[in-house]
């Protein structure tokens, strides 16, 4: 049997790849996909704890987090479409309306 450390390490690596992606990319859609990646990494660590404790509550929490992620993806993509309609670009370095 694999020990829980490996699942948590995989989750940490995926989370950090998501962080790096959010920091270096400029395309808003790719940044959004990296956020989804980070959500998935956290889901993995929730599931591994749930399965190692033998407790079903973690899986319920993952179910709710999936639903919230779906809602977030819908609203975020709608915002991206609205931004694209105004700016004709999804490059986040050009969206500087609120920049000081």
């Amino acid at each position: 049997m694999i020990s829980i450390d490996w699942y948590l390490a995989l989750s940490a690596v995926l989370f950090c790849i998501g962080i790096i992606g959010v920091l270096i990319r400029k395309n808003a859609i790719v940044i959004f996909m990296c956020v989804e990646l980070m959500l998935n990494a956290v889901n993995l660590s929730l599931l591994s704890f749930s399965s190692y404790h033998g407790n079903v509550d973690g899986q319920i929490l993952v179910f709710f987090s999936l639903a919230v992620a779906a809602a977030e993806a819908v609203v975020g993509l709608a915002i991206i479409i609205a931004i694209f309609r105004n700016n004709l670009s999804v490059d986040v370095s050009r969206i500087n309306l609120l920049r000081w």
Partner: protein
Amino acid sequence: MISYIFIFLAILAVASALAVVISRNTVNSALFLVLTMVALAGVYLLLQAQFVAVIQVIVYAGAIMVLFLFVIMLLNLDAEKSLFNKLRVKYFVAFIFGVAVLAQILYSMGTVSNMLPEISPQMAQIGTVEAIGDVLFKEYILPFHIVALLLTAAATGALLIAQHTINPVTEKND
């Protein structure tokens, strides 16, 4: 046997996650993200969480990624040209920051790793759809209904935000 499958799925997930970040074409990023989701669903199966694995494939790799691809093709974006052509300070700072976060997480995990539990033997009965449905519709029935409200609100809000509204004032000026 299980460890070989885990190593294969972990390498697949990490490599395709890296490809999401690195690839210039947005469509390629989205397809690599689908690959990451499917590999993670395999990892969930190894953790005896069958229901969540199936939900992951249907909701994430199915519905959400179709939405992403639809938006990408609707916006008709061209590939990002400037990525990695010249090395910038920003990339190094981002990389160092990410590695620092990773080291922090791994260090904090390493200090508690002798306290972490062994895998529970009754997990094979717990992860089934029947067991999850039992808990979901008895103890968590109120959050379940609230999630239904949340999804309705999200769909309505997305329609409102993405709707194309013509400003009547500018039309008169034209």
